[in-house]
């Protein structure tokens, strides 16, 4: 299928402009225009005509109404501005026109907006019966026709902004690839058939059950389990998408973070070290405080240490020489006199004995008191000397501990300094810390989602086993009751249809993904200007695209802008082939993100693609350099310059 003409009236810069695309030896059409001349609005006009949308608007465009500014302000009798975009196609001898017409009020409303008064798409089809055109204007049929020629959900692989090519596999690419493959290969239709057959089987089962309450209950249980599994399937799909999205986001963050160490871990380590340092300092303070308490007593005793020792020795010497009188218990003597008998032998005291005791009491009153004092002092000195030794030991322990904890404190401070030095060398620390924190969050989310997926799968399996068991009982009961033979045959037939569809779907998903990989690889290698550097293109079960370097390592992250754009284009060509749709390719500024000699290389790739399908390329004059002109000189079918003067775009020969 080819686009043969695009006619624009009063659409943005286009007052009245007709693009025609005649096929010659090849089918490359080049339009060269500065920015704001109307290149992107050509893409917008196609989107507006087909889907009533303009996805390629710049901020400047967004501020403006669709109708041409000159047409809005031009004095005329007509209170409205008509806008039209007509897209003419040719498809295997048939001619089809998509024509969208709209009308806008020339009077702005209170919000300074030009109100749309009318907007309608019609399709005209000529299927080779002279000048007879069928007109389609029913909304339902229009949607159907658009879906046949330009399916909206896969438009991004047919007309797009070249700036997105080099970043095609950077954001949400896994989900995009998965969607593209299931939509383009029509596998989603199998899912619809599978689901609809299920509804038909349920309906027929209900008919077969008739009025039986037991079977009706059983059937309701089966239906509830099926509904539950259907919800689980949706939930699983969405969880898997979330997981893929989270993994892509993690990859993107990894690219930004590069070789910078885990800052969340470093920050956790710093916090732990800071706490340990404070704890150590508190312990040192406690030890120092104990030392300070023990020190005065120790100092005082140390001063007296020598004297005490000498005094102790002196007493000891005196005791040895028996210079200290024996200690006589005066109370015993007093008791003996009071009782008039010896408290030791219990014999009555004689007169002489009494006098003897009285004399002894008098003589010991002084010497015994002295001996008692000396003994007490000797005992106290011994205690003090022991205390001194004990305090000395304690002080030694305190000193050793303080030294030990100070060493720990120094080591901790050293480690903290090392970490501080490490993070101070990181440029834009706050930004990177945020990225690391975000990465941590995503890692946690990935773990949780993975667990949730596992739980949902287990629940699905349990339900499925229950369905099979209950379905078996239901089938047996229906058989016993002898349901109408024709109904039974229909149910069995539907089940067989469903089995084949499910099996086909499972096999096709794998096969189509492999096809997409093979075609992407084939195109990438056939068009690459330095293919010898690479070994393979992979597309995993999770729809992650990767390129393997000849050494075998993954290298998609280190491809140049031109190589990434080529990979995206190769993938897009694979989607074209898989889709079975022969659609043109329209690219706005295809080499915008490519620099140097790769521009020429990439243009040669485009020239090759132009040999197999209609290719409409929109360049800026800076892009369309002499090198590119030499590439396309012999290859283009049409070459025009787009100029906007006085608010109106028109085409000129280049």
């Amino acid at each position, binding site marked *: *299928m080819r686009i043969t003409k695009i006619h624009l009236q009063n659409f943005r810069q286009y007052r009245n402009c007709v693009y025609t695309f005649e096929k010659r030896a090849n089918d490359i059409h080049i339009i060269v225009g500065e920015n704001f001349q109307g290149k992107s609005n050509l893409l917008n006009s196609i989107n507006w005509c087909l889907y009533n949308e303009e996805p390629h608007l710049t901020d400047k465009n967004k501020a403006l109404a669709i109708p041409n500014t000159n047409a809005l302000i031009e004095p005329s009798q007509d209170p409205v501005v008509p806008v039209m975009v007509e897209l003419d196609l040719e*498809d295997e001898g048939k001619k089809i026109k998509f024509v969208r017409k709209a009308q806008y009020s020339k009077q702005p409303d209170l919000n300074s907006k030009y109100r749309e008064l009318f907007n309608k798409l019609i399709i005209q089809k000529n299927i080779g019966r002279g000048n007879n055109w069928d007109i389609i204007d029913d909304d*339902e*049929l229009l949607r*159907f026709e658009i*879906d*046949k*020629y330009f*399916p909206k959900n896969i438009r991004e692989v047919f007309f797009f902004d070249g700036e997105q090519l080099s970043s095609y596999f950077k954001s949400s690419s896994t989900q995009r690839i998965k969607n593209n493959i299931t939509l383009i*290969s*029509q*596998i989603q*239709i*199998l899912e*619809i*058939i599978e689901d*609809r*057959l299920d*509804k*038909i089987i349920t*309906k027929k089962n209900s008919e077969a059950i008739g009025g039986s309450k037991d079977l009706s209950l059983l059937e309701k249980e089966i239906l509830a389990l099926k509904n539950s599994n259907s919800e689980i399937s949706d939930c699983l799909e969405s969880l898997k998408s979330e997981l893929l999205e989270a993994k892509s986001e993690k990859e993107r963050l990894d690219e930004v973070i590069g070789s910078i160490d885990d800052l969340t871990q470093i920050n956790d380590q710093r916090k732990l070290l800071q706490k340990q340092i404070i704890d150590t300092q508190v312990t040192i303070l406690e030890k120092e405080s104990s030392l300070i308490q023990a020190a005065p007593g120790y100092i005082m005793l140390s001063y007296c240490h020598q004297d005490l020792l000498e005094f102790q020795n002196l007493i000891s010497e005196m005791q040895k020489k028996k210079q200290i009188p024996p200690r006589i218990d005066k109370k015993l003597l007093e008791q003996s006199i009071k009782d008039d008998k010896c408290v030791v032998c219990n014999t009555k005291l004689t007169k002489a004995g009494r006098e003897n005791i009285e004399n002894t009491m008098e003589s010991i009153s002084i010497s015994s008191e002295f001996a008692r004092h000396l003994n007490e002092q000797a005992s106290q000195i011994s205690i003090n000397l022991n205390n001194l030794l004990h305090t000395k030991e304690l002080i030694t322990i305190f000193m050793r501990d303080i030294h030990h904890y100070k060493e720990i404190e120094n080591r901790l401070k050293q480690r903290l300094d090392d970490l501080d030095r490490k993070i101070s060398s990181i440029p834009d620390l706050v930004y990177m810390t945020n990225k690391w924190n975000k990465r941590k969050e995503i890692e946690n989310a990935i773990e949780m989602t993975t667990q949730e997926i596992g739980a949902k799968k287990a629940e699905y399996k349990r339900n499925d086993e229950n369905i099979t068991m209950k379905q078996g009982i239901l089938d047996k009961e229906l058989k016993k009751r002898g349901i109408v033979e024709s109904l039974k*045959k*229909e149910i069995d*037939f*539907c089940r*067989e*249809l469903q089995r*084949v*569809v499910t*099996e*086909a779907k499972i*096999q*096709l998903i794998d*096969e*189509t993904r492999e096809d997409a990989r093979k075609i992407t690889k084939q195109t990438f290698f056939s068009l690459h200007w330095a293919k010898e550097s690479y070994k393979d293109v992979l597309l995993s079960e999770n729809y992650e695209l990767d390129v393997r370097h000849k050494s075998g390592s993954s290298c998609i992250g280190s491809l140049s802008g031109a190589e990434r754009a080529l990979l995206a284009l190769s993938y897009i060509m694979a989607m074209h082939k898989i889709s*079975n*749709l022969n659609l043109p390719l329209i690219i706005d500024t295809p080499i915008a993100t490519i620099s140097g000699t790769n521009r020429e290389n990439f243009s040669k790739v485009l020239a090759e693609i132009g040999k197999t399908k209609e290719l409409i390329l929109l360049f800026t004059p800076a892009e369309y350099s002499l090198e590119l002109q030499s590439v396309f000189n012999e290859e283009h079918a049409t070459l025009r310059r787009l100029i906007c003067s006085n608010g109106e775009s028109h085409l000129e020969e280049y």
Partner: protein
Amino acid sequence: MIKANPRILIKFEDLSRLNKKVCQCLKELFMFELSEKKQFTDEYDKIIKKNLNSQD
């Protein structure tokens, strides 16, 4: 314009080799899904009954 993905049609043939009715019925259901999106229940019923009762 959109045509049925031939790979899907071949897959139907492969997987229902022993039952031509199933294969034909699936092709018709598939074409129905590719064509006008009207109320599916009646159309499915019609296609299923027609193929089930067809002569091989």
